[in-house]
């Protein structure tokens, strides 16, 4: 039923029709599966211990079934969420559902193991539901506008995973668990998970068919839905609960498999599925093919000592490029942009900047003199301060510089793209730096710091240019850029995860980089970081006119006689270097680059210079306080600095959103 619409829309210039493409991919997956079975087919006559038969029946077969079912469940869940929230970016990962489920399971394992023993699925469902309810209630007043929902979702997801990581870190064998849950492994030894997943899929598909009419109407805007007499909220919540139930089952049974829920519905649309009925068929099918094929390839690449890549990461490795390639043809519902919030008058802006400067200095001083020791809290002074400062000052300096660099990169990227959600982290520029670092380490495990830095800069630059090319081809649609960013981020993370999974000396370098800590900062590091910040940020203050004008659009900029191409390229290169440098110092997981520019918006969005100054100070302040808290909260245990950056900045950012700042077209 799908083929006609698909062939009609088969994109111009591409010989392969989407149906044929997916058919081919499914055939490859089936071939891989057949090959796998043929190598395991029991050769011995049936005896009483026939392990070949056991492996085939309890491991190989259920694993393939789980791959197909989990892919389909995620595809369907993603489609339902996207439909009901009218949000092309909604899916279990971006809404925080997977991370919420994971956090609930981690917390239960640590504090209430009996819950995990009784029912893992219920724990996961409770966590996922809590996360999605939080996201929805935070963005309710903005009418669940997609960009706000995804922003809130990302903050919830980020905070939840940071807390999970801290819990695991403080309670045992973190790497092992992190790997299984974070990567999503499809290894099976039983028919329990396939049965659980198939009931979810059956119930989900049945309910979706029953709700076909309400769903179609919910895809329209509120006014039309109301006039058609649908009990909007009731059906909305029913569908959301259904989607959460399906997605959290996957988390409970096989771990977090991101990306499929996002990619499958998008790829279904890109393959020409137009009506809801077509999509309901195509999205689960594509999800299933994607995961089945990935799992086949992952098993093909596996050595005797285990799999090299968890299937969840593999799905991003495979689906990421496909999504990026097809993205420019995706037509999305356009929403009004997130408002550029009200600007305070120039004088007030200056006053706030002074206040922020004061706060940052106070924070730095407090971080320098207040600390915990074996005898409890203490305020250092005199000789003792001089001694402790040798340890504390470099960390404060590095944290402040890195926070400021990320903030500046965020301001630049948000202004170039005119997109309030764009940031080094969201667009994958930070993880791109990691991919570049990985490439350098693969060439030479003993590469020095200069080469590592060069690799990081190259990686982040490559990602940023790719992102902006996609955005330019698609005329800067907000959602499209973010979709590309999530795909790129997932792709780069998969490269890093796969390298870490090799378990060699490079893995440890990457793991340390990924966990991001100012712990090893030396005085020299701090001076270098601060010097780089000065060197890279000062030109931006001088070029503030470019930053003022670029968000107004190309035509205005050209009309004002700005050298668009050159100016833009310079800014992009600066942002990439800033991101890579910051990531070298504090890792890629801080989200300060997203938060700081937002928090600085009310100060002076209209004037780039004030916005920049505000963001620099907010970024530095956030990181100084986060670094201090990371050292104090669980003393003497040091927690990840990124955790506190998101715990501090996240709620405030979400509060800004929830306040329902007035929109300007």
């Amino acid at each position, binding site marked *: 039923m799908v083929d006609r619409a698909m062939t009609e829309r088969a994109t111009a210039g591409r010989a392969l029709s989407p149906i044929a493409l997916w058919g081919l991919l499914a055939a490859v997956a089936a071939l891989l599966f057949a090959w796998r079975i043929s190598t395991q087919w029991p050769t011995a006559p049936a005896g009483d211990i026939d392990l070949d038969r056991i492996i085939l029946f309890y491991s190989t077969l259920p694993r393939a079934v789980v791959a197909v079912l989990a892919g389909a469940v995620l595809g369907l869940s993603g489609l339902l969420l996207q439909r009901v929230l009218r949000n092309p970016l909604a899916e279990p990962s971006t809404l925080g559902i997977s991370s919420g489920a994971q956090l609930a399971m981690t917390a239960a394992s640590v504090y209430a193991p009996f819950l995990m023993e009784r029912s893992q699925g219920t724990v996961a469902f409770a966590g996922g539901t809590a996360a999605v309810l939080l996201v929805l209630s935070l963005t309710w007043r903005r009418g669940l506008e997609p960009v706000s929902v995804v922003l809130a979702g990302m903050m919830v997801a980020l905070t939840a995973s940071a807390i999970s990581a801290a819990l695991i870190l403080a309670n045992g064998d973190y790497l092992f668990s992190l790997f299984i849950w974070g990567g999503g492994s499809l290894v099976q030894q039983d028919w329990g998970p396939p049965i659980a997943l198939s009931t979810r899929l059956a119930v989900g598909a049945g309910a979706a068919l029953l709700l076909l009419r309400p769903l179609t109407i919910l895809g329209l805007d509120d006014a039309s839905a109301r006039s058609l007499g649908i009990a909007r909220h009731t059906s909305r919540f029913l569908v959301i609960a259904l989607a959460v139930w399906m997605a959290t089952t996957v988390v409970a049974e096989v771990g977090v498999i991101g990306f499929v829920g996002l990619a499958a519905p998008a790829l279904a649309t890109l393959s020409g599925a137009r009506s809801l009925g077509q999509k309901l068929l195509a999205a689960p099918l594509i999800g299933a093919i994607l995961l089945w094929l990935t799992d086949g390839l992952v098993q093909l690449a596996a050595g005797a000592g285990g799999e090299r890549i968890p299937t969840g990461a593999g799905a991003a490795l495979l689906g990421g490029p496909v999504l990026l390639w097809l993205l420019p043809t995706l037509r999305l519902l356009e929403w009004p942009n997130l408002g550029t919030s009200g600007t305070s008058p120039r004088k007030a802006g200056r006053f706030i900047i002074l206040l922020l400067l004061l706060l940052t200095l106070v924070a730095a001083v407090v971080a320098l003199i207040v600390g915990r020791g074996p005898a409890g809290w203490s305020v250092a002074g005199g000789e003792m301060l001089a001694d402790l400062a040798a340890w504390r000052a470099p960390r404060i300096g590095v944290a402040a510089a890195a926070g400021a660099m990320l903030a500046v990169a965020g301001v630049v990227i948000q202004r170039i793209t005119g997109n309030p959600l764009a940031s080094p982290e969201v667009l994958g520029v930070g993880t791109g730096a990691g991919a570049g670092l990985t490439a350098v380490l693969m060439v030479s495990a003993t590469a020095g710091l200069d080469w590592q830095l060069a690799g990081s800069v190259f990686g982040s630059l490559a990602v940023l240019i790719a992102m902006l090319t996609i955005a330019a081809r698609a005329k800067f649609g907000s959602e499209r850029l973010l979709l590309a960013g999530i795909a790129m981020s997932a792709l780069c993370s998969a490269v890093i995860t796969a390298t870490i999974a090799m378990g060699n000396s490079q893995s440890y370098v990457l793991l340390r980089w990924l966990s991001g800590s100012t712990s090893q900062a*030396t005085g020299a590091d701090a001076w270098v970081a601060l010097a780089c910040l000065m060197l890279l940020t000062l030109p931006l203050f001088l070029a503030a006119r470019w930053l003022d004008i670029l968000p107004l659009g190309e035509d205005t900029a050209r009309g004002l006689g700005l050298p668009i191409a050159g100016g833009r390229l310079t800014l992009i290169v600066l942002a990439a270097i800033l991101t890579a440098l910051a990531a070298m110092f504090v890792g890629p997981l801080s989200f300060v680059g997203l938060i700081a520019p937002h928090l600085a918006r009310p100060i002076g969005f209209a004037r780039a210079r004030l916005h920049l100054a505000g963001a620099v100070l907010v970024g530095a302040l956030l990181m100084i306080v986060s670094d201090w808290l990371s050292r104090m909260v669980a003393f003497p245990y040091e927690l990840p600095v990124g955790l506190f950056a998101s715990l501090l900045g996240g709620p405030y950012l979400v509060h800004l959103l929830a306040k329902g700042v007035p929109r300007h077209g």
Partner: protein
Amino acid sequence: MIHLLPSRRRVLALGMAAMLPPIAAKAAPLRVAAIDWGMLETLIALGIAPVAATELIQFRKLAVEPEVPRSVTDLGLRGTPNYELLRIVAPDLVAISSFYEYQRPMLERIAPVFAQTVYAPGVPPYPLAEAATLALGEKLGRQAEAKRYVDETSVEITRLRATLPADSGRPVFVISLGDSRHFRAFGRDSMFGDVLRRLGVENAWADETSYSAAAPVGLEALARVPDASILVVSPLPADVGRALPENALWNALPAVRNSRVALLEPINHFGCLPSARRFARLATAALAGQTHG
């Protein structure tokens, strides 16, 4: 804030004296801090209580023995030890292993660093652990104790080997469980694998050790050696109690069907000789209890 930086190497001054233990007299033994758990257990085995060590909460749970005296200061995580606290403790020597080489520049600002390599991919660690013990004894003026401990451990393993029936002939898997579906195997380049060989038991895992940063292995890999016994090193993750008894493949493994699976108390995975001894003792007891199988 940054102008205070040049005071980096400033020696302990009067102002801090209140917070610090008195400076040791010349004849007193060296005050040692251990970043590496293997070094921590070796220090205690040599009769030296370290002044500080890392992740003691986990150590008491996961390594269990030797018992760490309450006087030892907990420095926090192994990967990011609290340097400030270590500075206040002011040890005379910091013992690390090659895993923590990257911390050397920071640690050397506090005290001289003593580093030994015990674990390297593809290399059986037991001889390296013996060498590390002797080197540590040498460094701390405890040569006799170190020599005695190395010899005692070797004698102990030989004695335990004799308690195992010579003809059992079954290979043994030594694993730890990541969840109810995945395990980590200990190969010949792990301490458990090396001790297993010294006990005269064949290791059923022929590949190298899959360490924590490596991808975990699915349980079906255990079916590759049908007649093997399985030793599971504790602790077990939370979901295992519920899910493992329902795991069809696990239940179908000959070792499970014929009760040739034993759960060992927790043992430090990356330990030195004390861990080797603990493993030898626990493994022998478990294997002796099931040789009829």
